[in-house]
């Protein structure tokens, strides 16, 4: 199934994306030369720690960058159209209709003064030109699909009457109501409890099959991503450092950061020995690191890592990594 879609080329292709924030403190390169391909019917995972540029990437795709942020270079191509070049008016037609997005905080992502039903209908009416009645019908159907209990009643309720998990389901219903091709899910379960998280992840998996949807799933949690993603890209300090099939990433990490992340997660039944933690702190976005951006925290660092930045290179079919010493790391990680 995946091979078939690959033949048709990616649904969305990001090339050398540079998103910069011109803050008062200085230039922040929130995304600094990012390449990413998203295929239909696939879930692409984007993993990284806070401040690494995951969310900025998503907002760049949506064209919703907040104020001091600008795309300075690169292209985001959705089926032949470069989104960075489209005027706002055309982007509006794409947002919600072709690309939809759900956010981390279901608590604050819905407008408190409108019923949740109305908020879903609104997009349907705008994008599909349906009548209010038809839109209501579609909304009810969507509420059923996202497994909200008694959808008819829910539609007339306000956000504050729903729990966090239910609100996230409403957000999903809203996002999928216009049959988008791509759904961007930005940490959709981070604010929810584990037992609720499972339900949302299962729902996303189910809906992806039903709607042959492409999902860009953004999270900091390697555990969560392994439940949903087909491909995983690991991001560190505004760049992708490793990218491969999900299983491959976990079995064969080739970048010291990926390896370090995997090792530093405590495992149940893993005993009481110390966790192999990555030393040091997250990089300061205002101060760019010369050479490989991971070198100050890397156990494999050599002199040349301080000089030149490694490119994201394909080291095996479908497996790219940005490390000068990836071959040695592979040997040691086993």
């Amino acid at each position, binding site marked *: 199934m995946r091979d078939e879609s690959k033949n048709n080329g990616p649904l969305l292709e990001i090339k050398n994306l540079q998103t910069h924030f011109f*803050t*008062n*403190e200085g230039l922040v390169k929130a995304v600094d030369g990012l390449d990413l391909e998203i295929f239909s019917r696939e879930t692409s995972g984007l993993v990284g720690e806070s401040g690494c540029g995951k969310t900025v990437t998503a907002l760049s795709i949506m064209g919703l960058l907040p*104020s*001091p942020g600008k795309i300075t270079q690169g292209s985001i191509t959705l089926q032949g159209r470069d989104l960075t070049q489209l005027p706002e008016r055309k982007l509006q037609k794409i947002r919600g209709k072709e690309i939809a997005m759900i956010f981390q905080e279901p608590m604050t992502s819905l407008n408190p003064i409108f019923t949740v039903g109305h908020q879903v209908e609104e997009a349907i009416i705008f994008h599909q030109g349906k009548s209010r009645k038809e839109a209501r019908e579609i909304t009810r159907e969507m509420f059923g699909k996202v497994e909200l209990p008694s959808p008819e009643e829910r539609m007339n309720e306000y956000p504050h009457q729903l729990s966090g998990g239910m609100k996230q389901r409403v957000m999903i219903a809203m996002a999928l109501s216009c049959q988008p091709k791509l759904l961007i899910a930005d940490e959709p379960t981070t604010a929810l409890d584990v037992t609720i998280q499972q339900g949302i992840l299962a729902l996303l998996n189910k809906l992806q099959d039903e709607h042959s949807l492409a999902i860009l799933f953004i999270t900091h949690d390697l555990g969560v991503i392994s439940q949903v993603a087909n491909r995983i890209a690991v991001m560190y300090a505004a760049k992708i450092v490793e990218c491969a099939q999900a299983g491959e990433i976990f079995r064969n990490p080739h970048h010291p950061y990926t390896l*370090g992340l995997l*090792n530093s997660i405590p495992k149940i039944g893993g005993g009481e020995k*110390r966790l*192999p*933690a*990555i*030393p*040091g*702190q997250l990089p*300061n976005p*205002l*101060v760019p690191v010369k050479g490989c951006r991971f070198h*100050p*925290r890397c*156990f494999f660092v050599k002199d040349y890592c301080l000089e030149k930045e490694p490119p994201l290179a394909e080291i095996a079919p479908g497996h790219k990594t940005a490390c000068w010493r990836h071959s040695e790391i592979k040997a*040691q990680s086993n």
Partner: protein
Amino acid sequence: MKAKMVNSPGSQPENLSLIHQTRGQEFWRTFKRNKLALTGMVVLGFFFLTALTGLFLTYGREPFFNPRTVRLADRLRPPLSRPHRTIPEENRPRFGIYILGTDDLGRDVFARMLQGAVVSLSVGFVAVGISLFIGMILGGIAGYFAEVKLLKGVTVDDVIARLIDIMLCFPVFFLILTLIAILPGNIWMIMIVIGITGWTGAARFVRAEFFTLKNQDFVIAAEALGIPRRRIIFKHMMPNALAPVLVAAIIGIPGAILTEAALSFLGFGVPPPHATWGNILAVGRRFIFDAPWIIFSPGAAILLTVLSFNLFGEGLREALNPKLRIR
């Protein structure tokens, strides 16, 4: 190799906190970007200097500029005019001209303005000082001891909240007028009345601030460490509540200056012999068509001072509020 990956926490790399800036530096950097606020600060500085020198130059029995000299021959002279030749030498203005003209009694408006600057600014400061004092104490009590029950389930917070409600129900300016009409009128009474009718803002501010602070982890941590309550309130909570209160004060001062001016204008303000910007204006009111300069000087001075205070205060608020700061 695996063993080496175990990281001991002692081996922290050194280049970590790269923005090494004190709060003061950070504040100043944010503040000075706001050109309007900066201008406001400079103008305020100028007014303070003027008020201070004005205090010296108009003080005493024979001041450098005498605001009390009455010259009936030189009534309602326009600015920059020369005194009448009948004016005796000792009553002539300095430099031989009336810089801002004269009023209906031939008093030098410039000298009166100088004297008024001190009075107007000090009314502003003292009145707001009183407001803040009451507001901080009541607000602090309401915020910190909010849940303490007094009787029959009525909490401390309830009582103070009701008090604030009551204050808010009175039309402030009318209330001030009423009080000043009843109480013996002198400059201190005016400061006090403006002060005690204006504390609700500060109280609500401090109350909200203490409410949040009380539940902040660092305050709970202090309690967990067995730090005495008095020290928690004054060392941990007060300094953190002070910044917004300071801003409220800065923005409150021009309000008090305006109120005093309005009172003087209506004839309820600071009684003679003190000149204030308000009562200079009140005098000029009767001659607006014949001698408009009399109202222009105090009007413009009030306008500039209040404007600078507000701009400066807003700049402070912005620079002190981490939420408004763009990170």
